[in-house]
């Protein structure tokens, strides 16, 4: 196996070995959201024509799980390695910074996908869903998990303590996901908040992902994908620059 392939394998094996915590737990948490919100919001007017609230909610929750788990994977793996010191096992071999980047982000994408598919499959037991444009679903899931995997890598590189990663998660990732239209269509918001939501890149990921299921969205999905792609490119460039410099990894 190549150095990159091995690092990817190691990252996959890492979360697979604690699958109860990295896959089963987030699937359960997300299903609790589904049960509670669809119960509380029952009878609410459909968000889009002919899309009941619970069906509207599922893609949002799936995408939220994908994003949060992609972030958790790279950030927690890296901060653990840094704090325990075993990061040197990947710094000593002849791995390039590209290898490093690609392996951590791809493993995050896989973790996000696995949790997302888990949430989706279990949800289908409760809620009927349509799959109008499966390729859009996949495209947004890949882009979204790659963006969050990259953000997780940045957080892991920057942080020196566990609580700094936790702060990154609580004060940036959580607000951006919760306020991105997971639980509502932004059209139901007052004009100010609607306008503000357009500055949240997570909104485009959720909206475009939902388009894949229902064929309707607040924003043209092509535009959303361009915005997601541009975000990914900017974050990738930033992360590669940090890795190339050895920022906080090679002193």
């Amino acid at each position, binding site marked *: 196996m190549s150095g990159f392939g091995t690092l990817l394998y190691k990252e996959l*094996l890492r979360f697979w070995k604690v699958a109860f915590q990295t896959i089963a737990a987030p699937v359960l948490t997300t299903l609790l959201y589904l049960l509670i919100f669809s119960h509380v919001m029952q009878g609410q007017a459909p968000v889009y024509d002919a899309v009941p609230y619970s069906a509207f909610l599922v893609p949002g929750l799936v995408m939220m799980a994908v994003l949060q788990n992609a972030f958790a994977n790279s950030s927690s793996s890296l901060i653990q390695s840094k704090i*325990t010191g*075993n990061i040197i096992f990947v710094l000593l071999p002849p791995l390039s910074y590209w290898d490093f980047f690609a392996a951590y982000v791809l493993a995050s994408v896989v973790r996000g996908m696995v949790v997302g598919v888990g949430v989706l499959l279990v949800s289908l037991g409760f809620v009927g869903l349509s799959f109008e444009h499966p390729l859009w679903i996949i495209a947004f899931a890949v882009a979204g998990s790659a963006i969050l995997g990259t953000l997780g890598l940045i957080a892991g590189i920057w942080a020196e303590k566990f609580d700094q990663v936790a702060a990154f998660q609580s004060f940036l990732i959580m607000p951006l996901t919760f306020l991105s239209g997971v639980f509502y269509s932004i059209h139901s918001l007052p004009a100010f908040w609607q306008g503000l939501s357009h500055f949240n890149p997570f909104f485009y990921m959720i909206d475009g992902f939902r388009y894949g299921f229902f064929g309707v969205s607040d924003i043209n999905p092509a535009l959303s994908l361009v915005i997601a792609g541009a975000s990914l490119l900017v974050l990738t460039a930033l992360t590669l620059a940090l890795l190339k410099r050895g920022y906080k990894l*090679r002193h």
Partner: protein
Amino acid sequence: MTPAIQIQQVHKRFGAVQALSGIDLEVAPGEFFGLLGPNGAGKTTLINILAGLTRADSGSVRVMGHDVIADYRESRRALGVVPQELVFDPFFSVRETLRIQSGYFGLKHNDAWIDEVMHHLDLAGKADANMRSLSGGMKRRVLVAQALVHKPPVIVLDEPTAGVDVELRQGLWEFVRGLNRDGHTIVLTTHYLEEAEALCARIAMLKQGRIVALDTTNNLVNRRDGLYLKLRIAGAALPAALAARVRDSHDPVHTLRLRSYAEVEGVLAQVRESGARIEELELLQPDLEDVFVQIMNMEEGGERSGGRSVSCVLSTPASPNR
């Protein structure tokens, strides 16, 4: 012949601390080389620069002729590092750890060598045990095995026996000697000076980021002229006239410094004249530790006086880390 390690004018500063100031050093292929110095002398910084874990502010470092920055892939393939800290990845077993480490170097089908390394380090019985369940000594062995998975020609051991029990230490040194006999270049940092003396053919002593001595172990030990006379006396205290010669004193055992064998008679006569009886007597050759203490003190004296004082004042008999 290409040096195994070539370090030229390496400087490194961490904030206000100048960790290394102008290190020049060459280690030939097949050497067993020692890097000695007190804590904070810059040994680990130098090793980290060699391994690419730290970047030098200036200067160049090559491993088997490959620059550690420009040709990092080649230089890292040529180098195996056993780190000082007892680090491990708690997710994996010993075998997984070694397979993964081997894969990072792009090696396929490396199981035969992994089994051999595990066998030599007495790890075979723990191959499928999780890293978390291993004792400190076992974890240390895994670190050694990890440094060897890619069969590097140059092996660096950064204080590998710190906190390791005697039995493992002996076994580890036997193993490392074997690697050296097979042609591997070994660089060792250690706090145990007798270990460096027994193992290393050549030694560099570091102090405050500078090399203060660089010579063969034999020359370094011989550089310290004189010898020690260890006496157990009874009946009276050590005469005051001999106080200046004392290296250490644990009444009634005193170790005195002599310039040559010719002084033995005179010292014994002084002891007898004071009314003391000599119960035990032993002549000791200076060892690396004496040289180490001497060189470390000499530097300090030199700095205080603003010049390089060659005559040295042996003032601290405390034996570090023995």
